[in-house]
């Protein structure tokens, strides 16, 4: 029988998960300009948060790989 692994510990990298929530602060991006490819700032700024979210969650995932079990 494999022995019981130690309990998971809190990983400070998890704090990165809070970064995408900045997207909820609408006054930061509720503008028309500058436009990119004709898209108002409001839209392309929010599209940028898709990769931001992916990177944050991805880093947390990568940093959790060391955890046993």
């Amino acid at each position, binding site marked *: 029988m494999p022995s019981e692994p130690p309990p998971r510990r809190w990983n400070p990298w998890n704090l990165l998960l*809070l970064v*995408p929530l900045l997207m*909820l602060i*609408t006054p930061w991006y509720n503008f028309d300009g500058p436009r990119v490819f004709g898209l*108002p700032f409001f839209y392309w700024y929010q*599209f940028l948060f*898709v990769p931001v979210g992916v990177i944050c969650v991805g880093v947390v995932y990568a940093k959790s790989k060391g955890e046993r079990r």
Partner: protein
Amino acid sequence: MSTDQVVQLVVFLVLFVLVAVMGFMASRWQAGSTLDHLDEWGLGGRKFGAWVTWFLVGGDLYTAYTFVAVPALIFGAGALGFYALPYTVVLYPIIFLPLQRMWSVSRMHGYVTPADFVRGRYGSSLLALLIAITGIVATMPYIALQLVGLESVLRTMGVNGSGLLGHLPLFIAFVILAVYTYQSGLRAPALIAFVKDALIYLVIIVAIIYLPAKLGGWGHIFDQASTALAKTNPTTGKPFGSTLLGPTNQLQYATLALGSALALFLYPHSITGILASKSRTVIKKNMVALPAYSLVLGLLALLGYVALVSGAKPIVNQATGKPDSNTIVPVLFGQQFPAWFAGIAFAAIGIGALVPAAIMSIAAANLWTRNIYKEYFHRNATPKQEATQAKLASLVVKFGAVAFVLFVDPQFSIDLQLIGGVIILQTLPAVAIALYTRWLHRWGLVAGWIVGMGWGLYLLYTIPNPANGHLHFGGSALAAGNISLFGWHPFAGSTVQIYVGAVALAANLIIAVVVTLIARQAKWFNGLDATNKADYDADDGNPKLKEIAIH
């Protein structure tokens, strides 16, 4: 019916039949030793890897209705409809950690539904019943809305009869879906999701490159759309909307996005997709990869503006006699694409309705079987009897949804879906917070649920919809000045809008905490906890995991 519509319908039917065949064959795909167990029928053997889970959960969350309704919202009101993007971006970081704990504890104890978990955590069948009923009630109109999505496509292709006969094609499509879900369980939507998503990605990529170029580029489209939305709506006397948020709806935008994100994985069908996966690693990989769908949804949302500028007009639903704004994207595709490609696009939306409808009916059936039938009617039910019961329940659920569409105004399904989001959010303390702590007392959770539910429903009831003249259930945006506590208006005069679900959840949490403090003072019994601390961290390969599909 025009020639174009005939071509569209033929392409649609070919793809639909292909998918139906796959649905029936799915029962043999990676088959376990038996299908007479909920682990197998209801959770696909709990062994889906990263790819299958990506398609399954993607097909589950980003439904046909989403793909039809989000652009329709932008078409009608502008920027507010874009909340779908922040909603599906903040979603994954929020649920990344709790979902892994949910998977682990469910895998250790063989839980199939969120209510199973609550039952184990608090030893309270009453609390579990409340969670199960909330889940079923919130899911039913969601299934009905998938039918609304499917029907909007059929009507665009000219299958737009009036009366009961007008619903016949929908009925046939659903009987086929019901039969192969009955036979194959969760494996059917998992396999079909591959086709659905391949088609969706193809259609969106083509649409997003081809349509703006054809209509003069995004800059032109946004300029035209701003002008069109700034016109005064004759029924309300206010502008239709704006391509940016206004002074009063920014809080609504943020709270609606956040509230919807918190609610999504409380829906039983989302949990079903997650519990079907093989390991924590599968879930983590998916939390990184699922935003690909968010990107697609965001792009698709912008098609609402494209439709506005192209001059597309929603089709009048012959069964209700009213223009149905949900037909706007299908109409746009029908007008702008060659007929064969429009057929593919319609099939993508139509099949996109079948995947979530199947998963939702399975999830609702699991809830019924595990938390109501087994708990209250047949305590000693064998796994085989559970599976049989769930299969039958999945049929009942689907035909219930069809009956909804047949006999009730589609607007009512939309209202109910709105309510569904608010009420499912009220299970957050019992399901999500309980994953971390048992500090909240079970009677605190029951009391919080009652208050959050009652107040949320009451507030929704007080919201009128000036656009269609309905006095009640007119939306989820509540002016803060109208928040009423037994006639007292704490924010009187404020026109800033907020999402009702957020207000109701806040009340729920406050009551839960207050009653918990009282209960702890009075030393009320808080039930027995069947779970251990280590259960929440267990992963695939742990020797203590419960065996799958054991009789």
